[in-house]
């Protein structure tokens, strides 16, 4: 808040107290030693009229319970005027507070009629304002405490052992029951039936050969990558071909080369290569 004028220069040009934008300022502002740009930022930083009032009260070490309303009102209005000069968008709350201060001030000027018999003493016109200031100040202070708490991403970080993404992202697949296979096969067979009549020569199909063909599909895929069960079939081969492929898959599965899985009830089946250990068994 304190302006840092080049002190040497200041003594040279004793005409002014500070040099702002190349111009010597002749007089100190009464209570603000802030260059205009900083002043603007300073004024913008107020979180509303209560904040501004608390600032004025603290700055002068005034007891919050005994606010000299006339003086505070004068200062408050001069700040609000400054804000206007800087064309800060002045929240309506500032003007409302100005009105409240003016009202309290005028009430304080009026003589207080003696309280009638049995009636409570008239309250200090400042009481409500003091209550609000006190309440707001408590939260201002506790907000700072909150900011001091140990918090994640600033004071502490969760310690975690690295878990590879591929492991983490694999869906939890479960073993497949036989009826699920037949269910999936039904669709394949239905489509195969459409091709049957176009078959001219029925060439004998070797299951071993088909096993290799199926495995070729997995050759370039890393362990753990799944292929939809139905895409392993070539429906153009007709029923016979489909059955051969099925037997090949089941055989590969029995030998723990491939594994069948399903990630949801009635969901599509997936086939993937087993881990390397199992592959050795197959050879």
């Amino acid at each position, binding site marked *: 808040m304190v302006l840092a004028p080049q002190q040497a220069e200041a003594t040279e040009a004793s005409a002014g107290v500070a040099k702002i934008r190349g111009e010597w300022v002749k007089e100190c502002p009464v209570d603000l030693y802030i260059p205009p740009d900083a002043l603007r930022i300073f004024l913008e930083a107020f979180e509303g009229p209560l*904040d501004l009032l608390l600032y004025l009260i603290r700055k002068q070490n005034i007891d919050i319970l005994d606010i000299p309303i006339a003086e505070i009102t004068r200062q408050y209005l001069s700040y609000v005027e400054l804000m206007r000069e800087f064309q800060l968008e002045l929240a309506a709350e500032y003007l409302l*507070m100005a009105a409240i201060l003016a009202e309290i001030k005028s009430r304080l000027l009026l003589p207080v009629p003696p309280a009638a018999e049995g009636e409570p003493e008239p309250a200090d016109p400042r009481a409500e304002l003091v209550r609000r200031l006190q309440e707001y100040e*408590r*939260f201002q202070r506790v*907000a700072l405490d*909150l900011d*001091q708490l140990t918090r994640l991403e600033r004071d*502490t970080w969760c*310690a975690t052992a690295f878990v590879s993404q591929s492991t983490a992202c694999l869906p939890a697949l479960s073993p497949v029951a036989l009826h699920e296979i037949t269910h999936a096969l039904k669709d394949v067979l239905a489509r195969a039936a459409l091709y049957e009549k176009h078959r001219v020569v029925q060439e004998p199909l070797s299951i071993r050969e088909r096993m290799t063909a199926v495995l070729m599909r997995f050759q370039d895929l890393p362990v753990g990558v799944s292929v939809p069960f139905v895409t392993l079939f070539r429906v153009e081969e007709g029923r016979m071909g489909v059955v051969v492929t099925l037997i090949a898959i089941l055989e590969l599965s029995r030998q723990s080369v491939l594994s069948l899985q399903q990630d949801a009830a009635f969901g599509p089946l997936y086939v993937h290569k087993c881990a390397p250990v199992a592959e050795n068994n197959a050879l």
Partner: protein
Amino acid sequence: MISTKALLEAALFATGEPLSDDRLYDLVNAEWGTEETPVPREEVRQALRELQAEYDARGVQLQLVASGYRFQTRPDIAGPLRRLWEKKPARYSRAVLETLALIAYRQPISRGEIEAIRGVTVASSILKQLQDREWVTIVGHREVPGRPALFGTTKVFLDYFNLRSLSDLPPLPEPTNLEQVDEVLQTLMPLAPAEAVAEGVPVVEVADGAIPAEAGIP
């Protein structure tokens, strides 16, 4: 044969998020418990206590927050650690912190009530920011005209600020009142010598129990 401690430690590191008492217990019980002889809960608690003690002098600590136990780096080495990250930790404006404080201490609270105490309009962006961070959520509506939304804090908030529950929040300061401050000072003074002894500061022995005025100032 793995130990309970090793299992708990591995689970906490592998998940990288707080695990509740119950989840940790289930994990241990599933491994070693049977229907007739379940693992005693105390065994898991004891293992956690031992882990906590073992990690006491390490760079990471076992910390209990609202959602459960988690391993986290020691707060006192945060400074050097920050150099590892390009991004500086987020700073929150006074408006955000004050709004958060009001919601934390006065929940469930409506926007209007926040505004009444702060004396200014609460920008929608502030409430949105707090909600996006999942620190704050709408917990209900006050059944009055306009049905204002009521805000409350979440477990995410407690976890983020290293708290087990709202009662761990720093105490809300009493309203400033110079007379009260005086009273507090008066009541604190007689305690001062005892504290000074605890801190190893020599205290002048006073025979009649009167307390020298300087005693409270170490």
